């Protein structure tokens, strides 16, 4: 038992030593789970270059704004434009994304117009073969409350959450992708960047065009895609120098590749 204790003590000490490293100042960024992976990677690059650590936590756009207001975070990630009653915050555009409607790759449907999407999500249209009562059912995948992706989707199609009849409710983008990829009858909506990434990597989904405009980065860059959204970093009050430096960093032109990695558009494009 004594011997075991010594081993344990040694292991604990080694563990702590291995973990301890340089400690500079730290920035905290919280908010949208769509932006979080991108931000985490940008933070890695930032730390390599300047030695300043940036902590990235997800929790949703709403949480990002709340934390920044309360001083719990230095920057908030918000995956939409700021509303009229959120003007106490300063929004800094860092990129663009959109929301794409996705179906399973084997689904023969090539396009849906807005009315059809509305009908599907409110349960008025229940089968893929219009007008039939048998045949392939439409499995509606919807995002959980509070996510800005959900809010934007509902706003665009002029729906209230209570009108939606989902068959499946998911939390994060990846769960939505997996839900649709695993189900030939499913339809869902996720961030375009995530969807294109997955589709390019062989996941069994297809993005549908919206109002005739294909869901691609080119269309998004031209500003033609109907369900585009801003990716913002928000601050509250006066910006400290470290925060300003970080903001400048994430919008630097040589960081554009990181955005492209996630299939988002950096603000400059």
């Amino acid at each position, binding site marked *: 038992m004594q011997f075991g204790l010594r081993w344990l003590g040694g292991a604990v000490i080694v563990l702590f030593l291995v973990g301890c490293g340089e400690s500079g100042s730290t920035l905290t960024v919280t908010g949208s789970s769509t932006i979080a992976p991108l931000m985490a990677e940008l933070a890695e690059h930032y730390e390599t270059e300047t030695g300043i650590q940036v902590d990235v936590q997800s929790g949703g756009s709403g949480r990002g704004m*709340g934390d920044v207001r309360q001083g719990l975070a230095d920057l908030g990630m918000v995956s939409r434009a700021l509303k009229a009653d959120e003007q106490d915050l300063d929004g800094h555009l860092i990129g663009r994304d959109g929301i794409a409607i996705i179906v399973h790759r084997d689904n023969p449907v090539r396009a849906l117009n807005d009315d059809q999407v509305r009908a599907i999500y409110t349960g008025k249209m229940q089968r893929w073969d219009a007008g039939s009562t048998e045949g392939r059912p439409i499995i509606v995948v919807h995002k959980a409350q509070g996510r800005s992706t959900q809010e934007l989707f509902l706003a665009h199609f002029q729906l209230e959450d*209570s009108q939606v009849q989902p068959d499946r409710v998911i939390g994060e983008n990846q769960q939505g992708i997996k839900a649709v990829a695993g189900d030939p009858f499913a339809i869902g909506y996720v961030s375009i960047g995530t969807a294109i990434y997955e589709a390019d990597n062989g996941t069994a989904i297809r993005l549908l065009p919206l109002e005739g405009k294909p869901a691609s980065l080119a269309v998004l860059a031209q500003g033609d895609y109907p369900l585009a959204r801003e990716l913002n970093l928000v601050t509250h009050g006066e910006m400290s120098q470290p925060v300003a430096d970080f903001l400048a960093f994430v919008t630097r032109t040589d960081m554009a590749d990181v955005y492209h990695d996630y299939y988002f558009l950096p603000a400059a494009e």
Partner: protein
Amino acid sequence: MITTSSLPLSDRLLTLVLRLCGVLAALVLGGIVVVLLVQALPFLINEGAGIWQSTWQPGQGEYGMAPMIAGSLFVSVLALVLAAPVAVLLAAWLRYFAPRLRRPVLAGVELMAGIPSVVYGLWGMLVLVPWINQWVPPGASWLAGSLVLGLMIVPLALLVTDAALGQLPLRYQRAGEALALSRVGMLRRVLLPRAAPGIVGGVVLQFGRALGETMAVLMVCGNVVQWPDSVFAPVRTLTANIALEMAYATGDHRVALFASGLLLIAVTGLLLMASWRLRGVSHG
């Protein structure tokens, strides 16, 4: 006679520390309930009755938890119904029909008991749900949740049954053999009924754990807030709801989630007391 005052200082200190530790455990339980209550009380007073409604739309101030309470209960009950017979019968089989298999299988089962729920959930999401979907869409459903939960319950229920059977005096088995009863008959009429209190008590405890499970049900149940109209319908449990919405909830919404946490404690507490009764344990 040794009185307290004649004990050395180290002993008196020790007694004090131990008493504190003992109190600490009670404090923790009380603390949890108090902290949650403090958060949830204003909400409960104002909107308490609203909890029993069927509409969960926090954006519009509706906090009806009834479908989710049902979701939690239904998923757990079905999981238990599926898992308990399998676990009990398998444990009995291992002891009386295949004793040579018992040790290796129990070893495997212990390992199963240690696999994190995230892993079960992942498997459920990637394999089980699409498979169910081929029979009855959407796949992510009450049934999927119960199957995954059932798989998670079986190991511990099996171990508990094995322990209960192990406690039976050997003479029961000997008497059965002397009377030339078939093993099935012996189990059915003597061994299992005798071990029943321990088994049932342990199994009820597993029900409590099933109610408390979060990650696996989050990934496979579909998370739609509704009263299910069949086992293939998606449901949302109270636990999955907290996990899904906690990070994004503010104000009343968040407080409602704390209230649902209290509800969970209350229900598991009741189940626990039922299990004590069944096992014949007295806890005052």
